[in-house]
C-alpha cells in the first residue's frame, strides 16, 4: 500500500504541469503555423526582389534587414516617440468617438423616431472615407494634431453608434417594464439597466472602431505632421531606408494586434451572456 502511494503522489503532482504545457502547446500550434507561413511568404518575396535586377534596390524589405532595423530602433529608443504620438491620437479620437457615439447610439436605439430620422443620413455619412474629410479638417482645425484626431473621430463614431443602437434595440422589453414597476427613474433606468445591458455591444463597436481608426491613422499621418508611425513610414521612404520602413510596418501590425487583443479581453470582461 505504502509503496504504491509513494509512487502515485509524484505522478499526480506531475499531471497538472504536463497538462498545462500540453494545453499551451495546443493553443499555440495553429497561430505559430500561421505566423510561420507569413514569414515564409515574406522571405520568398524578399528573395525574389533581391534576385530581380530591376528591384534589387528594394531588397531591404526582406525579413533579415527588417528585423535588424527593428532591433536598432528598439535599442536606440527611436521607436517609442512615433508610437507615443500615434497612440495619443488614436486614444484621443476614440475618447471623442465614444463620448459622441454612445449617447447618440442610445438615443437612436431607444427612440424609434430618432432611428427613422437618422438612418439615411447616418448610412450616407458612414460610407464616406474618413480621409475624404481631410481638406475640411485642415480648414476647421488650427493644428494638424486636432485635424488628425477629427479624422479618427469620423472613423470611430459610426461603428460605435450603430453597435450601441443595435444593443439598445435588443434589450428585452420586460427589463424596462420590471424596472419601471420597481420605481426606477429615467436616470436609474439608464445607469442600472440600459448601460449594463448594452456594454457588450458598446465594446464590440469600440473594437470595430479601433480597427478602422488604426487603419485610417497611418495615411492621416502622411499629411502635415512630423511625428507618429505614418510620418515615420513617409520619412523612411524619403530617405530610402526601406529596412526601417518595413520595421515600422511591422510595429504598426504588432500594435494593431495588441489593441485588438485588449478590446477582445474587455469584451469578455463585460459580457454577461452565459457561454
Amino acid at each position, binding site marked *: 500500500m505504502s509503496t504504491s502511494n509513494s509512487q502515485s503522489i509524484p505522478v499526480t503532482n506531475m499531471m497538472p504541469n504536463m497538462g498545462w504545457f500540453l494545453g499551451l502547446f495546443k493553443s499555440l500550434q495553429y497561430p505559430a503555423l500561421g505566423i510561420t507561413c507569413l514569414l515564409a511568404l515574406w522571405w520568398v518575396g524578399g528573395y525574389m526582389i533581391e534576385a530581380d535586377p530591376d528591384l534589387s534596390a528594394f531588397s531591404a524589405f526582406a525579413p533579415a534587414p527588417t528585423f535588424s532595423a527593428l532591433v536598432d530602433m528598439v535599442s536606440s529608443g527611436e521607436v517609442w516617440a512615433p508610437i507615443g504620438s500615434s497612440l495619443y491620437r488614436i486614444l484621443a479620437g476614440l475618447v471623442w468617438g465614444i463620448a459622441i457615439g454612445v449617447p447618440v447610439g442610445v438615443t437612436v436605439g431607444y427612440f424609434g423616431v430618432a432611428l427613422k430620422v437618422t438612418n439615411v443620413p447616418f448610412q450616407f455619412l458612414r460610407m464616406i472615407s474618413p480621409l475624404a474629410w481631410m481638406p475640411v479638417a485642415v480648414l476647421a482645425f488650427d493644428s494638424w494634431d486636432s485635424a488628425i484626431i477629427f479624422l479618427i473621430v469620423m472613423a470611430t463614431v459610426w461603428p460605435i453608434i450603430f453597435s450601441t443602437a443595435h444593443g439598445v434595440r435588443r434589450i428585452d422589453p420586460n*427589463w424596462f417594464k*420590471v424596472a419601471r*414597476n*420597481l*420605481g*426606477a427613474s429615467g436616470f*436609474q433606468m439608464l445607469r442600472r439597466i440600459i448601460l449594463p*445591458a448594452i456594454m457588450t455591444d458598446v465594446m464590440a463597436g469600440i473594437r470595430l472602431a479601433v480597427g478602422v481608426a488604426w487603419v485610417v491613422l497611418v495615411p492621416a499621418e502622411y499629411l502635415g505632421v512630423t511625428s507618429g508611425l505614418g510620418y515615420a513610414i513617409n520619412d523612411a521612404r524619403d530617405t530610402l531606408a526601406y529596412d526601417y520602413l518595413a520595421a515600422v510596418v511591422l510595429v504598426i501590425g504588432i500594435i494593431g494586434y495588441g489593441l485588438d487583443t485588449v478590446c477582445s479581453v474587455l469584451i469578455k470582461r463585460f459580457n*454577461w451572456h*452565459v457561454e
Partner: protein
Amino acid sequence: MGASISLDFITHKFSATAEPTLKDIENRIEPGELVALIGRSGCGKSTLLHMMAGLLIPTEGCVRINSHQVAKPSAKWNMMFQKASLYPWMSVKENAALGLIFDGVSKGEAGQRVDALLDMVGLNDKKNANVQSLSGGQQQRVALARSLATEPEVLLLDEPFSALDAFTRTQLQEEVPNICRERGLTMVIVTHDIDEAIAMADRVLIMSQNPGRIVGELVVDLPWPRRHMDAGFQAMRDELMKQFKGTDTGLAGRHTSVADESEKTASAA
C-alpha cells in the same frame, strides 16, 4: 399592511376607433384580500392588472389604491410577471435588492434587507449565484423576493407560475398566499387556471370577453392550506365551472372535461 384597491368604472380602448377591451369594470378589493381574476386569453384580465400596477392608464375611470388614484408605477404596488426577467449582469442578491436601490437605500443595507427574504424563498445558498444558472422556479423565487423587498402593500401576479413545472408550481401556489397572509398583503393574481385560482384566492372574479367585464364572482371559503384532492376543493371547482358555463366565457377546454369526468364518476357512484 395591505391596501384596498377600488376599480372605479373602468373602460379601456387601445385606440379611439377600437371596440373597448374593458367595459364598466367596478369592484372593490379589501386590504389583505387575496383575489384571482380568471378568464379566457384576451379577455383583458392582464390589461386590468397592468392598470392596477400603474403601467397602463384606463381611458375612462380609474384605479384607486387606498383611495389614491394610481397614475404611475410604484414599488408599493408591485407586479410579478410570467417571465422572471432577472438582470443577468447582477447576482441573485443584487437582483432581489434592485427595488431598494431604486428607492435610494444604500447597497449594504439593501443587501441585509434581502438576505432574510432570500432565505424565506429558499435561495439561501444561491445568493451570489449567476441568475442564468438558476432553474425557472428559482428565478421566479428571486422575482418574488425582489417584489417583496420594497415592502409593497399590494402584490400583483400576472400568470407568474404558468411557465413552471407542475411540482414547483404547486409549491409556489401554496407559498405565495401564505406569505401574503402572514404579511397582510393584498394580492391579485391573473390566471387562466381554475385550480390555481381556487388554491390561492379568497375570492375569484370571472371575466368575459369582447368587451372584458366582470361577469361572475365566487367566494372561496376553504381552509388553508388548500388541498386539490379535498371534497371542498372539488366542489368549489365544480361551482366555478358552472358559473363559467352560465356566463358563456368560453373558458372550456380541459377544465370542462375534468368537470364532466367528475360528474360521470359521481353518477357512477
